[in-house]
C-alpha cells in the first residue's frame, strides 16, 4: 500500500529526507506541468517548482493534515507562479526562448507520440502550438482555472480553495475561458 501524502509530510516534519525525496518524485511532473502551462517558460518553471518544494520542506513543521494535500501544494505553486507573472509584468521581460522556433520545437517534442511520421510531427506541432498560444492569450486568472480543472482534474471547489476565492468566481472564470478558447481554437477544430 502506497504511503499517503499526509504520512510523508509527518515524516518530513521529523526530518526524514528520503520521505521528502519521495514526495518530490511523486509530485514533480504534475507540478511542473501546471507551472509551465501558467508561465510558458521552462527555465522559470524549474525555479518556481524548486522554490515550491523548498517552501513545503520549510513549512512542514506547521503542516496540519486537514483537507487535500494537493490543494495546499497547488496553492503554494500557483501563488509563486502569480508572483512570477507580476514580476514579469513589472519588468516587461518576456521569455524569448519559448517564442523562439527551436525552443518551441523542443517544447512540442514532449507533446508528441514516441515515433510519429514526419508529416504527423508537423501537424501535431502546429496543433500544440495553437493550443499553447490560445492558453497563453487567456488572462492569467482564467488560464490558471482551466489548467487546474482540465489538466489536473481539480473540482471547482478545490480550485476555489487553491485560489482562495469564491466558488462563483471560479465558475465565471472557466465559463469565460471556455468561450474564448472555443473561438481561438475554431480554426483547428
Amino acid at each position, binding site marked *: 500500500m502506497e504511503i499517503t501524502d499526509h504520512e510523508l509530510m509527518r515524516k518530513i516534519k521529523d526530518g526524514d*529526507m528520503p520521505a521528502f*525525496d519521495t514526495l*518530490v518524485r511523486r509530485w*514533480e*511532473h*504534475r507540478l*511542473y*506541468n501546471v507551472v*509551465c*502551462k501558467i508561465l510558458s517558460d*521552462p527555465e522559470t*518553471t*524549474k525555479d518556481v*517548482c*524548486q522554490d515550491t*518544494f*523548498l517552501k513545503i*520542506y*520549510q513549512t512542514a513543521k506547521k503542516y496540519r493534515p486537514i483537507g487535500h494535500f494537493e490543494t495546499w501544494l497547488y496553492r503554494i505553486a500557483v501563488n509563486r507562479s502569480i508572483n512570477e507573472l507580476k514580476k514579469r509584468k513589472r519588468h516587461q521581460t518576456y521569455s524569448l526562448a519559448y517564442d523562439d522556433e527551436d525552443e518551441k520545437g523542443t*517544447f512540442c517534442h*514532449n*507533446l*508528441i507520440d514516441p515515433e510519429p511520421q514526419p508529416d504527423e510531427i508537423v501537424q*501535431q506541432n502546429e*496543433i*500544440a502550438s495553437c*493550443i*499553447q498560444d490560445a492558453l497563453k492569450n487567456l488572462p492569467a486568472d482564467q488560464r490558471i482555472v*482551466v489548467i487546474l*480543472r*482540465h*489538466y489536473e482534474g481539480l*473540482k*471547482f471547489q478545490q480550485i476555489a480553495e487553491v485560489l482562495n476565492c469564491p466558488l462563483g468566481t471560479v*465558475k465565471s472564470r*472557466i*465559463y469565460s475561458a*471556455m468561450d474564448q*478558447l*472555443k473561438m481561438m*481554437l*475554431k480554426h*483547428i*477544430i
Partner: protein
Amino acid sequence: MECEEARKRIVDFFYDELEPDTMSSLQEHLARCDNCSEYKQEIQSAIQCLDQQKELQSSIDLVALHDAIERKSRTWGLFSYRLPVWGTVLFVLFGIVLSAFALTKTEVQYTNNTLTIRFGEPIAVPQAQPQTDPIAQAKLQAKIDDLTKRTDKILTEYKKDQLKFQSQLTKEMRDSHNTTLKMIKDYESRRDVQLANLVQQIQLKHYQSLVAMKNEFELLASQTEKEFKRSYSTMAAMAGLLSYQPGQ
C-alpha cells in the same frame, strides 16, 4: 432554462460538475435550441483539442534542492527574510533612534574631526546674584553704621587716654625735674649722707610711675586691638554674606 444558463451548464456537464437535477432541464433545452446544441458541439471540440496537449516531463534536481535546503538551514533566522522586510525593520529602527534623539534633546556635532554627542539639554549653572533684599541691606547698613560708631568711639577714647598718658608723663617728668632740682640744691647746701637716700627715693618713685604708665598703656592697647578685630570681622562677615565688599 434560458440559453445563457444552458451554456454555463454545458461547461459544467463536460467537467462533471452538473447537478443531477439540472441534467434533465439541460437536455430539454438542448432538444429545442439549435444554437445551444451547436455551442455544446463547439465546447466539446475545444475540450478535445485541449486534451491533445500531453503532459510535460521534467524532473526536479534533488541535489540542488537539498543544497538549497542546506543553505536555508544554515542561515540564521532573521537573515532568511527578504530585503523589503529588512528595509522595513531598519526604517522602523531608524525612526525609533531619531525619536529617542528628539525626546532626549540630543545634540550631535562634528567639528575639527571630533564627534560630540550630548544627551539632554545643557545644565544651566546658576549665577551668583547680588542680594537685592532692601530690608536686609538696610539692616546690614545699620549694623555697619553701629559698628563704625563704636569703633570711632573706641578710637576717641584711645586718643584721650593717649593724651592723658602724655600729660601724666609730662607731669611726672616735670615733678622729677623739680625733685632733681631740689635735690641738687639740698646737696649743694648740706653736703651730707641724706643725699643718697633722696636720690634713691626719687629713682624709686620714678620707676613706679613708669611701671604704672606702662601697665595702663598695655591694657588700653590690648582692649583697643580686640575691639577693632571684633568689629571688623563682624563687618566683613555681614558684608560677605550680602556680597558686599568693603572698600569697593
